[in-house]
């Protein structure tokens, strides 16, 4: 018990919180970029541009079927080999963005496809152009359907950020490892703290998602 009290000194907790902040920074920057790229890719697949959509679809499938850890290694160690050196922070962010863009593209595409085709037909029949129909009628409805899977993807992104500990990104898991590396009595307290911190952030997000789902269903 005394281990717990000593392990949770303000200094250690502050150090963990600094790690959590990096975790959240990487996740938030990645999700913003991924949403933009994912929306472009998802729309490209939805509007079926000749050849381009098929190629984009194939690349998305490739990325989705690779382990994120491999993409992370590729960006950090692989690109360095051909002369592209990124900082640890931006390597992690880039790897997450590449992976999440592919994930979000699929979510966005299936969200748009879930909107009844009659909506677009009705919009066109009322004199709207294809783009107007997409922007004013289809996308707002699709966004409603996308929110729950988008939030759960964001949760898994936060969890996946822990993988970047392998390229020594100073995030939550890495900081916890440094703390228990100095004193082995702190191992269990640190794992408890890790579990609690990740759980609080991710579970809070899942509650938000559930609330939005209920709100938007009305």
């Amino acid at each position, binding site marked *: 018990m005394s281990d717990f009290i000593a392990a949770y000194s303000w200094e250690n907790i502050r150090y963990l919180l600094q790690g959590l902040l990096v975790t959240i920074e990487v996740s938030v920057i990645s999700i913003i970029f991924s949403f933009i790229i994912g929306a472009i890719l998802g729309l490209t697949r939805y509007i079926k541009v000749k050849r381009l959509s098929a190629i984009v679809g194939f690349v998305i499938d490739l990325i989705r079927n690779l382990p994120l850890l491999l993409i992370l290694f590729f960006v950090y160690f*692989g690109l360095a080999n051909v002369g592209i050196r990124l900082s640890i922070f931006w390597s992690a962010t880039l790897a997450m963005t590449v992976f999440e863009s592919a994930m979000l593209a699929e979510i966005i595409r299936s969200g748009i496809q879930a909107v009844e085709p009659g909506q677009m037909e009705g919009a066109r029949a009322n004199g709207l152009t294809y783009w107007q129909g997409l922007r004013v009628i289809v996308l707002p409805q699709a966004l409603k359907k996308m929110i729950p899977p988008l939030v759960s993807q964001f949760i898994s992104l936060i969890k996946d950020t*822990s993988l970047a500990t392998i390229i020594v990104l100073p995030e939550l898991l890495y900081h916890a490892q440094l703390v228990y590396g100095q004193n082995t009595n702190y191992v269990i307290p640190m794992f408890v703290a890790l579990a609690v911190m990740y759980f609080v952030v991710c579970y809070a997000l899942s509650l938000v998602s559930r609330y939005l789902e209920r709100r938007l269903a009305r």
Partner: protein
Amino acid sequence: MITIFTENWQALLTGLGYTLFSSILALFFSLIIGSFFAILEEMPYRILKIIARIYIEVFRNIPLLVVAMFFYVVVPMYVTNINGFTAGTIGLTIYTSAFIAETVRAGIQAVDPGQMEGARSNGLTFMQAMFHIILPQAFKYVIPPLGNQFINLVKNSSVLAFVAGFDLMYQGDIIASTTFDTINTYIIIGVLYLIITMPLSYYMRHLEKKLS
């Protein structure tokens, strides 16, 4: 790129074997544990529902790597000596079981409630009805998401590289650090992962279309 493969094919295939072995073990055990918690949540007792809910929510909201590291670092220190492969596979199993529990529960709920009522009014106990009537029917709904879980498992098993689990990613890491040709090594590793995951994901998509 070809020389990396020809010179290290044994290590690469060993890694692929460990990756598949770990994924299959984890799928098998997480199906058992996941179904257990799914049934627990469907039981007509509040306390059991709460226990199941806590288990599922906790392991869904903690990174896999933290769970795997726990078994790699804490268990050998305080309980018993286990190797990285075992620790990683246990971590994978527990993490995945929370997701599979949700899948199985959705499957159970997709079965018409009349089936349970009919079984109970014919004199079966809750457990008998669950095992003989509900679960066999629920299984149909569970198959496609289970396939997707397996794809996730193959990808997620790359965390074994953190705990010296001899998997494909671990072997790739060693080859990359001995040959210094990181980019080509990782391309080969990527192709090997895709050989397993791509056909499976296309097949699962086909299966989902066929069933719906």
